[in-house]
């Protein structure tokens, strides 16, 4: 209790993060973790931070209540599966701020939602894949066809089609977010069947990336910049985009400090700097003028206005 008092005095916002995977999954959860850490660095002394990993929804409900009891100001439940418990708790504890995503809905007055419009990042990956492929076959390893992954994957398809309408796109879902082995098997299968540029979404994509690294020719476009940091990412990952959660967190902390506890949906796109795109510095040979031009043009469009790819949801895998 004294700790909390001290925190209140110092004016720091206490943030608790709840994630279903781990903070170093090189994907969805790590992105948010890194974002909060970056925000902490940007606002020295203004943020206190705890996190809980490996939280299925039931456990998340308990731990969130724990955090409330321990005096946390902002509870970030990073995943749409937590939607219900957050909305419920928001009613129970009107003094505490909550946040969850992905969600495009505007929540109650003490709930922030955030919505990465990942089709934009997927589109960039698709451009690169479509221009890089020599076999004219690209592969896409999905976990389940929903949420963030569904947006990224469909954006990818649009990107490929935009620059290479004849390219064949192999789409396969493993049915699991965490079965790395199966993702690897699916990727291997796509490579065997001719795919030479692959991408994948969610943490299981690491398994697919690892399998890609086994192929002498196949390349990878990443969903997260953290993937560059692995040995195989360095070797294979041509480019990747990342969520810039730091901006989201800083925004929320500022609002909380100014007395706004929620009631907003924060979209994330290139237009509002919610995403960062990077080429892999270790693989400059893939950064051809053609690719650079295509990426730059798309980026310019995205930055100019949000919602450029509003038609993403009409992508139908079965017509590929």
């Amino acid at each position: 209790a004294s700790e909390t008092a001290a925190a209140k005095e110092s004016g720091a916002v206490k943030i608790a993060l709840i994630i279903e995977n781990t903070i170093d999954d090189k994907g969805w959860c790590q992105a948010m973790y890194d974002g909060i850490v970056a925000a902490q660095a940007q606002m020295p002394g203004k943020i206190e931070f705890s996190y809980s990993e490996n939280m299925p929804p039931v456990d998340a409900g308990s731990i969130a209540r724990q955090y409330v009891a321990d005096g946390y100001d902002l509870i970030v439940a990073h995943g749409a599966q937590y939607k219900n418990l957050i909305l419920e708790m928001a009613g129970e504890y009107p003094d505490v701020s909550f946040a969850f995503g992905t969600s495009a809905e505007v929540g109650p007055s003490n709930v922030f939602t955030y919505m990465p419009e990942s089709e934009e990042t997927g589109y960039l990956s698709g451009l690169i894949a479509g221009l890089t492929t020599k076999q004219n076959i690209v592969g896409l390893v999905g976990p389940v066809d929903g949420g963030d992954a569904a947006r990224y994957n469909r954006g990818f398809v649009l990107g490929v089609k935009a620059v290479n309408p004849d390219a064949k796109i192999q789409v396969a879902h493993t049915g699991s977010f965490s079965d790395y082995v199966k993702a690897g098997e699916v990727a291997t299968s796509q490579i065997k069947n001719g795919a030479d540029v692959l991408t994948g979404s969610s943490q299981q994509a690491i398994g697919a990336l690892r399998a890609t690294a086994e192929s002498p020719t196949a390349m990878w476009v990443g969903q997260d910049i953290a993937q560059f940091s692995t040995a195989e990412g360095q070797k294979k990952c041509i480019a990747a985009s990342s969520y810039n959660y730091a901006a989201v967190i800083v925004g929320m902390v500022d609002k909380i400090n100014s007395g706004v506890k929620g009631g907003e949906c924060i979209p994330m796109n290139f237009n509002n700097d919610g995403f960062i795109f990077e080429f892999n510095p270790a693989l400059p040979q893939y950064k051809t003028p053609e690719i650079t031009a295509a990426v730059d043009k798309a980026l310019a469009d995205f930055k100019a206005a949000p919602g450029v790819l509003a038609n993403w949801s009409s992508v139908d895998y079965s017509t590929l």
Partner: protein
Amino acid sequence: MKMSRTFKFVYKLGIMLVAALAALLMASIILWMIGADVSQTFYTICFLPLTKTLHMTEVLIRAIPLCILALGISIAYRSGIINIGAEGQMAMGVLAFTAVALAAPDLPRPLLLPMALLAGVLGGGLWGFIPGILKAKLKVSELLSTVMLNYIAAQFYTFCLRVLMLDPAEKMTGSGTPQSMRLTANIELGRLSGRLHYGLFIALVLAVLVYLLMWKTTFGYKMRAAGSQDRAARYGGINVSKYLAISMIISGGFAGLAGGIEIAGVHRRAIEGVTNNYGFSGVVVALFGGLHPAGIVPASFLFGLLIYGSTLAPTRVGVPANIVQVMQGLIIIVIVTAQMVLSNKYLEARMCRRWNALFHKQKEVA
């Protein structure tokens, strides 16, 4: 050669102490390897949850599904079928429950809630019926079919949430997370404190019902006979395949009901990850509780405690959440081992003789 009371007491106590020490020691080794505070970890997992109402309610909301699942599993087990498919049956129960809630959101609660729960029972029961009938008619090992059906159910579950029951809001706003819309308030189970819901009473009532069914009726008598010695049961005019299939329907129905209650009491919409590995923990609770309601009720509380306690461990003592599995595994192993040793009359008699010999010798010396 009579066994003195002192001996019996010392013997039992001794074994339990040794067992507890063994579990502590093994867990400590792992905790020590990762440099954690051993005593603090144990305190957090085993005792901290007992100290606050908030904690207790959270323990209980885990005990509720565990108890219901374990009751169902014990029925199947007693009837000679090892149901490790409760995970899938629970998922199917959730789907059926949700389907009813989505189909008729405007019906009044007294009508809708029982209907939806019943649908959950039917959904789980149907999924349990498949391995039951496969075993009864085609002799397919239930160990195999239930494992496979778990995977199938998991995929079917995602399919339903993603395509058939997807929250229109998710579809419209494009976040597309596979989950249903928030279900009507007419299917909600009331809450006692915190998230603790009336499912608690349902679980307790079911425990009594299962006891009555299995031990006080001819129906249960026949199921147990079929499970204990199927040839004798057949000889006695009991239709073993029928009871096998029925027991699996009941067992699946319990799992489905647990799923329904979990939605009605805790989540209030169908989301991914509801089953939360309860299906497997349920097997453990059932066996741990001696396949008897009187044992299952406390066992489900104990496991609720453990599972919850270990979610506290990472934040409180910095131990990875995986430690819960280690502890659960060790506790299971040690307790079943101790139970076995305790029930070994041969060993007891031998130890008793040693004890007496020792005791008498000392007397002589004195």
